[in-house]
């Protein structure tokens, strides 16, 4: 019996030591960065053709970026995210050998939600673009294959019909009545 007890204790200690030494070569790293305010589509508040700059600024506040593009003034509202993860599995052999046997995988996904407003010289909203990218799953985004040049022109659904579950919504200016020209 004393031999059995000693053996059980020895195995317990050995298991703990193996777990301890083994885990010293493993690591999990999670990093998350968030920048800016949440960006919402404001479909009901911002109507191309009728909303002006004063109204847009009252609703949305100061834009994150302002620029001039082809004679129009562009206001960009953006919230950015960076999701970075790393998993390492290692067998620490420094005691017996000079290096560590290590298997490591890491990835970083940077995404942004955008609301882009275009204003003409009369400070009238002409069109807007809303794009939400932040809800895509980490691994699916990281592992997605980039589109080839030939595939880019073959998108079957370039602009989703509604903004709630879609990734990209472009709201164009309403057609101008012919008698107003």
């Amino acid at each position, binding site marked *: 019996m004393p031999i059995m007890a000693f053996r059980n*204790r020895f195995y*317990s*200690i050995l298991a*703990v*030591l193996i*777990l*301890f030494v083994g*885990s*010293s070569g*493993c*690591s*999990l*790293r*999670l*990093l*998350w*960065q*968030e*920048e*800016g*305010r949440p960006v919402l589509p404001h479909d009901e508040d911002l109507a191309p053709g009728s909303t002006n*700059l*004063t109204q847009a*600024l009252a609703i*949305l*506040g*100061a*834009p*994150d970026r*302002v*620029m*001039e593009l082809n*004679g*129009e*003034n562009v206001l960009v509202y953006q919230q950015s995210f960076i*999701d970075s993860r790393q998993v390492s599995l290692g067998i620490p052999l420094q005691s017996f050998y000079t290096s560590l046997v290590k298997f490591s995988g890491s990835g970083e996904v940077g995404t942004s939600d955008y609301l882009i407003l275009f204003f003409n*010289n009369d*400070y009238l909203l002409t069109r807007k673009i809303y794009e939400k990218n932040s809800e895509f799953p980490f691994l699916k985004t990281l592992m997605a294959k980039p589109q080839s040049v030939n595939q880019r022109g073959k998108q079957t659904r370039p602009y989703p019909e509604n903004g709630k579950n879609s990734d990209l919504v472009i709201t164009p200016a309403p057609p101008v009545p012919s008698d107003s020209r």
Partner: protein
Amino acid sequence: MRKAPLAVFICITMALFTASGCLILGKNKENKSFDSAGIDQLKPGETTASDVLKLLGAPTEVVKLSNGNAYIFKQVESKGTGLILFVVNMGYANTHYDQLVCFFDDQNILTHYGLTMDAENAHYGLP
């Protein structure tokens, strides 16, 4: 009195060692806070670009627009949290802005301005 097995003692020691780590909190600010009294004096149609510069100081950025200019004033606040454990490391950074954008026409008269006071919403956390 029965002695605790050595394995239990090692387990407790290892648990304490594994759980030991450190928590890091960091805070970063860029640019000075806005003068709210200066912002209250902005009057679209009256205030000039020179007045804005006198009230608020130098802008962070100046942008040429199709029918004038825009002055951007920005104050950034970031808060970061790091939790370093034996095996698991976690980090979180949150950045928010106070931002004022003043739009001027070709005559350098203020036409519009947009204000966002959001820097105070920067917070600590974990992923």
